[in-house]
């Protein structure tokens, strides 16, 4: 019996090949999208879940109580004294592990005589930590020992890094490398490190994407960080602390003690408190972030789930629409089968089996499609998804669930409709499928599809428009044809800065050169400080950005003075230039009024007069308002050159600049980045979101149109005779096409009316994240609606025209 079901089902599918292809194609795309999202989510939720002690590991977060609302209230950076304080004053904590994540480190691979063989720059992935790191996290060792990290100037390399530096990781052990750390604001020298072990490469699903683990205590981590007793030191960027608690110990109790303890050890004006955050929450904390910038919000994961569900539903709706369309053609078969003794439930089983075969086929194709498109998704989302990561059992269960639920969702209604045909009417082909309910369900489904499709289109339009705004809105400074070249100062190099500037200026195509600690705009890489204005007794309760810049900064980046004068050339810190926001934050209206007033920053370490005020420029990404800013000279703080180029023959100029840098600052990897590209990079996550939305919008509209095509063909089949009669009575081709399209125009209109406020609301919410944002103008949703309508009408018109030009004789000859 079952074999008979499968045999008939297979033959039916082959006979109606067109419908089968459309059905399989729609379901394949829908299921593939679902699977892709499943893989992404499985990947995202697997981060750092493989550590044996994961449930007992916590990260210490700083809650900034003294900062203004514009600053991040939670940070992963902790004060330098915290790890030692936890070790000594909190015996109930089993393990305390400080981690300092540096960035843009220069690595020199040398021969036995210390001669440089190779240079590398490691933007990320160098961590300074203690052996206890491995009692919190599981990272297998290939050679050497974990405990070697106890000794300063030892380093454990990952296998890939060892291979990069030495060719073969077996050769790396006991070799030495030199490191010039880039991720700390103060000057420090070169450290010589001995490779004391090789670690297996970290898996893709950990936030600790290390290349090298250096012993905490090496260089300034030992001389400065580990010895620090200054809880107010704000140079702690990248300094984190993880702890391991005993079993059955709640974090909440320790949090309470930590608050009391912080109040005790910190100065009165420092209200910051510290909290333990479970390791399981780290990957989802987009506010505090993590070491590899891979944090993803739970909200985004939920949005992905919802999109997956919607796309799958759209695909199921298509199946229902197409199957019921087919039902018209199959009514006779149902009649014959019923006359020959089949009953309702047997027919239902038969149709379900057909659906099952289609779904099964679609699932197989979807798996192939997923595997084939995974590299593109990786590229698009900057992920490293692979089927190795995928939990096979979970995936199989997921596919099984998809197969069953789609079969039920898609097949059940069609089976119900088909099996219900009255055999006598069906045989006389006088059945009516479209009386009332049936078609209105289909109408509802079409409206539903187009709500989703149009909402996604409108969302995409809004994101794209905001992206254009990011790229093109004026920032208040020159970003075109400006390159930034990082370098690291030491006393030797400082002495060469003036020489370097003179030589750079003599290169043809160089218009201006400025040395500074930061470019005009940074995305989170600024130095913030609280300050005292005009010898006030109390520190400000908000922070300002500090940029160390030379006197050429204003001219190179085309910044405008609104009061006072520019900084005088100096290697030391003598005076301040502030921005308009700084003036305004003090409640002062006239910029002239801040001139010659004293500003003291860094706990009184720097105390100088304001000599000038610059016009506000966007010193943060468009997510945030312009922040108050102080700028001052100090050549020990400069770490990059900003070079304004003439627009012509940039490659030749850059080649000359590179030659000059290699000569003047040897042992340093020459890198450059165009400022406009750097600014564009601030919005990478938005760019990804835009591309993701585009992709989903295209898939949703494609699937919806596939469904429309099905419904149009259903209508055409249903109304062949009516069209014939109308034509005999004088209807023109245009009349008939209108007859077919007016209903869909209405349905899409209804969908538009529902989708627009929904999309407007959500996109309005999304835009609230940006201090600088576009308005959702009225014609933006309209473009989305009209776009969807045009695509839909093109889809329907094929069937409509076919029906309209058919000769009426044929359709009326049925008697």
């Amino acid at each position: 019996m079952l074999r008979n079901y499968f045999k008939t089902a297979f033959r039916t599918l082959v006979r109606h090949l067109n419908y089968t292809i459309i059905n399989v194609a729609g379901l394949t795309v829908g299921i593939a999208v679902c699977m892709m999202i499943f893989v992404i989510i499985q990947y995202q939720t697997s981060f750092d879940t493989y550590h044996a002690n994961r449930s007992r590991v916590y990260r210490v977060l700083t809650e900034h109580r003294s900062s203004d609302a514009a600053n991040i209230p939670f940070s992963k950076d902790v004060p330098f004294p915290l790890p030692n304080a936890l070790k000594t004053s909190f015996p109930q904590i089993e393990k305390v592990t400080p981690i300092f994540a540096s960035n843009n480190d220069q690595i020199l691979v040398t021969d036995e005589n210390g001669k440089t063989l190779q240079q590398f720059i490691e933007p990320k992935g160098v961590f300074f930590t203690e052996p206890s790191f491995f009692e919190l996290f599981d990272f297998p060792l290939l050679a050497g020992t974990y405990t070697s990290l106890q000794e300063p100037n030892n380093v454990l390399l990952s296998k890939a890094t060892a291979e990069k530096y030495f060719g073969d990781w077996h050769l790396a052990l006991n070799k030495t490398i030199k490191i010039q750390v880039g991720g700390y604001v103060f000057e420090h020298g070169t450290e010589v490190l001995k490779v004391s072990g090789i670690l297996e490469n970290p898996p893709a699903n950990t936030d600790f994407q290390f290349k090298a683990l250096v012993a905490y205590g090496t260089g300034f981590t030992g001389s400065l960080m580990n010895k620090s007793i200054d809880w107010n030191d704000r140079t702690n960027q990248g300094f984190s602390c993880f702890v391991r608690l005993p079993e059955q110990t709640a974090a909440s109790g320790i949090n309470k003690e930590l608050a009391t303890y912080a109040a005790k050890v910190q100065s009165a004006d420092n209200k910051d408190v510290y909290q333990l955050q479970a390791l399981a929450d780290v990957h989802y904390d987009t506010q505090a972030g993590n070491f590899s910038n891979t944090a993803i919000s739970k909200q985004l994961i939920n949005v992905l789930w919802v999109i997956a569900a919607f796309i799958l539903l759209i695909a199921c709706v298509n199946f229902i629409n197409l199957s019921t369309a087919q039902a018209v053609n199959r009514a006779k078969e149902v009649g014959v089968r019923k006359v020959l003794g089949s009953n309702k439930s047997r027919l239902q089983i038969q149709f379900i089996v057909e659906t099952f075969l289609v779904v099964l086929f679609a699932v197989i194709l979807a798996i192939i499609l997923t595997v084939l498109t995974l590299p593109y998704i990786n590229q698009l989302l900057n992920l490293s998804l692979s089927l190795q990561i995928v939990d096979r059992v979970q995936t199989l269960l997921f596919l099984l669930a998809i197969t069953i639920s789609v079969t039920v969702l898609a097949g059940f209604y069609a089976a119900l409709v088909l099996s219900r045909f009255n055999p006598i009417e069906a045989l006389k082909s006088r059945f009516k499928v479209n009386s009332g309910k049936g078609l209105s369900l289909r109408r509802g489904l079409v409206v539903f599809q187009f709500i989703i499709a149009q909402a996604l289109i409108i969302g995409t339009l809004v994101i794209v428009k905001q992206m254009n705004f990011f790229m093109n809105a004026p920032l208040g400074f020159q970003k075109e044809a400006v390159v930034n070249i990082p370098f690291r100062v030491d006393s030797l190099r400082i002495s060469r800065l003036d020489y370097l500037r003179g030589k750079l200026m003599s290169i043809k195509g160089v218009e201006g050169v400025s040395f500074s600690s930061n470019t005009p705009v940074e995305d989170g890489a600024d130095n913030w400080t609280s300050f005292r204005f005009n010898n006030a007794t109390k520190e400000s309760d908000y922070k300002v950005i500090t940029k160390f810049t030379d006197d050429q900064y204003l001219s190179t980046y085309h910044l405008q003075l609104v009061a006072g004068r520019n900084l005088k050339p100096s290697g030391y810190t003598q005076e301040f230039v502030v921005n308009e926001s700084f003036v305004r934050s003090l409640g002062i209206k006239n910029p002239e009024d801040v001139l010659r007033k004293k500003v003291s920053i860094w706990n009184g370490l720097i105390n100088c007069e304001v000599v000038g005020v610059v016009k506000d420029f966007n010193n943060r990404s468009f997510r945030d308002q312009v922040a108050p800013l102080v700028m001052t000279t100090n050549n020990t703080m400069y770490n990059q050159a900003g070079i304004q180029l003439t627009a012509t023959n940039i490659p030749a100029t850059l080649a000359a600049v590179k030659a000059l840098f290699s000569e003047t600052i040897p042992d340093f990897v020459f890198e450059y980045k165009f400022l406009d590209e750097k600014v564009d990079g601030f919005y990478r996550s938005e760019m990804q979101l835009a591309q993701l939305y585009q992709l989903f919008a295209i898939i949703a509209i494609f699937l919806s149109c596939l469904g429309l095509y099905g419904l149009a063909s259903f209508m055409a089949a249903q109304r062949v005779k009516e069209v014939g009669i109308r034509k005999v009575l004088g209807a023109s081709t245009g009349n008939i096409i209108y007859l077919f399209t007016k209903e869909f125009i209405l349905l899409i209109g209804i969908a538009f009316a529902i989708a627009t406020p929904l999309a407007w609301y959500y996109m309005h919410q999304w835009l609230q994240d940006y201090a600088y944002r576009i308005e959702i103008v009225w014609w933006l949703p309209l473009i989305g609606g009209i776009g969807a309508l045009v695509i839909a009408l093109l889809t329907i018109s094929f069937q409509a025209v076919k029906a309209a030009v058919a000769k009426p004789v044929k359709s009326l000859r049925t008697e």
Partner: protein
Amino acid sequence: MIKITDLEKFYRTEEVETIALNKLSMEVKEGEFVAVMGPSGCGKSTLLNILGMLDDADAGSFVFNGIEVSKFNERKRADIRKHNIGFVFQSFNLIDELTVYENVELPLIYTGVKASERKEKVEKVLDKMQIMHRRNHYPQQLSGGQQQRVAVARAVVNNPKLILADEPTGNLDSSNGNEVMELLTDLNEQGTTIIMVTHSEHDARFSHRIIRMLDGQTVTENILV
């Protein structure tokens, strides 16, 4: 009014070519009532379709009101059709989704008659066909005879010069059938030309002239009046 000469029509399938009309010639004068009879497959319906400009012939000439229409394209033929010809079918061919009133109104919409004028015309013809009281019913709610009266009303609402009837009584009992035949006779007496395909000798006797067909050709003509 109608003059066809050496009209030919073939139906081709992959292997067989069937001749539906074989050099058929005939003439119908304005005001005539002609019945076309013959066995199944003799080409009656094909002839009627060509006369109604729903189908085109493969060869021969078809002059309608002094105009040669056999080479006209679909659009031109549709234009002549909607202004000059009304159809009555054996199975009524009413649109189930439309009411009696709306069914009858349809040809007027397609010929671009104004709404106020339409109302007047539809009511007049419904009245004449004595189905005014059924104007808001749907076709399924009517008896066969009533449905055919609606179909006739729809065929004549535009005041066509020619009515083509394809076995108009085929789905009706004899009393309903007679009613419909009397309706057609009345219309003919008021000046409408009627060409009717029928199997029924009884119905054929309502006409002026009977054309008998076999294998795509006319075999005999009986002039009754």
